[in-house]
């Protein structure tokens, strides 16, 4: 049996509950999921302000159906549509604080999605996983492994300061330079698409091999934490 995820998400924002509704769910299912969330809150409904975010304007039929259901079922203090400005503000805040957010989460394994641009430095205390491309002119640093699910065209330093077991892996492995522990190797200029390769230390030198044919973890009988 597949468990369905809820069509409704709720989080506290300021003095309101921000209710986000999945855009493609049927209204009946949304009503069921709303009931699950709001039934336990009946005793404090009169003091609750709800921001209803259906992804559509408040003139939309779907918005009105859900709004009417909430209004008639629970005696809430107020139900309003999110202000465009608030959404815009949230986006601006995210843009402005993107670097701070990354720094805050880099305590352990850091997973990022998107493009890392020239001039950016990303460092993780342990492992670093980038789902996206890493442009030339940026620096990645990690205490453990660096995995790039995309093109690695920048500089990557894994196993900092002295973890010789670390690897650097990319689906399209074309780095300018790699460093593992204290050993540095210059990347070779590659034309076009690179290969899925990984760099690791062997007898004090950096070796780059195809990940699929020389997978270093193939022979491990069971998984261990890295």
């Amino acid at each position: 049996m597949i468990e369905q995820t809820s069509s409704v998400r709720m989080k506290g924002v300021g003095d309101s509950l921000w209710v986000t509704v999945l855009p493609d769910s049927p209204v009946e299912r949304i009503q069921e999921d709303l009931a699950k969330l709001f039934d336990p809150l009946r005793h404090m409904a009169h003091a609750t302000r709800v921001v209803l975010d259906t992804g559509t304007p408040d003139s939309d039929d779907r918005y009105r159906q859900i709004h009417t259901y909430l209004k008639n079922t629970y005696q809430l203090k107020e139900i309003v549509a999110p202000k465009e400005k608030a959404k815009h503000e949230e986006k601006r805040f995210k843009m402005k604080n993107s670097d701070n957010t990354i720094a805050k989460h880099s305590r352990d394994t850091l997973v990022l999605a998107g493009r890392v641009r020239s001039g950016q430095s990303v460092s993780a205390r342990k492992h670093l996983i980038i789902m996206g491309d890493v442009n030339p002119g940026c620096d990645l640093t990690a205490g453990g492994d660096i995995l790039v699910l995309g093109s690695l065209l920048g500089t990557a330093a894994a196993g900092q300061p002295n973890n010789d077991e670390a690897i650097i892996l990319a689906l399209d492995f074309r780095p300018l330079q790699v460093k593992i522990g204290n050993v540095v190797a210059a990347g070779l200029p590659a034309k076009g698409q690179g290969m899925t390769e990984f760099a690791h230390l062997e007898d004090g030198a950096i070796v780059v091999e195809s990940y699929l044919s020389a997978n270093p973890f193939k022979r491990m009988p069971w998984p261990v934490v890295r």
Partner: protein
Amino acid sequence: MNGKIIVISSGKGGVGKTTATASIGAALAMEGKKVAVVDMDIGLRNLDVVMGLENRIVFNIVDVARSKCKLTQAAIKSRRIDNLFLIPASQSDNKDALTPQDMIRISKKMRTEFDFILMDCPAGIERGFENAVAAADEAVIVCTPEVSSVRDADRVIGLLYAKEIPSKLLINRIVPAMVERGDMLSHQDVVDVLSIDLVGLVEVDDQVVVATNSGTPLIMQNDSRAGQAFKRIAMRLNGQPDLPIEIPSTSKSLWKKIGSKIGFGK
């Protein structure tokens, strides 16, 4: 009036920011918009030369910042195109003569006077860049199909993102024959690295040198393919974002030739 401020930037020097600013500004003005092009390259001004207005400069943007004159006194009207004004840079100061706060203050005034304000950003990412982008609503990143230019454009896009300024990409000086031979990055290679929306592709064109040296608007030369490309870029910036982007190529198809003769395919 609530004008839009667009900064034309690149990071790297010599990629065609000033030509792009003058050409897009002229094209927007010919579409009936009131346009100011602002030279932010304090100490190394040349937008005035490109526009053939160097002998008309009385006041400049530093004078405006220091309240020596009004904005309207510093704005020089183009000789050939109505609605196009140049606000020149000072040649005797350096970049520290202005602060970002000065620019925010001047920009408020500029928005009330013009529909579009195009800021010709100096090369680099120091004070000149900071001044030019201080009040910008959006940016056009000029980039040539060379790795050094792409690297710098990438850096600038990141800096603008942190300042919440959305960027569009203009690829300049494309040599179609070299792209077809595989000796030059294709526009797709550049977009793959920079991953921002394209606003236009401009091919290399000898007419640019002629227009720049004579101070005449490039877009007024109908046989200039670069000029026509800048015209289309101006249209995309002026409410037609979905105007198809033409990819420069060496061979023009028969239909394209016929189309351009009767006024299509521009």
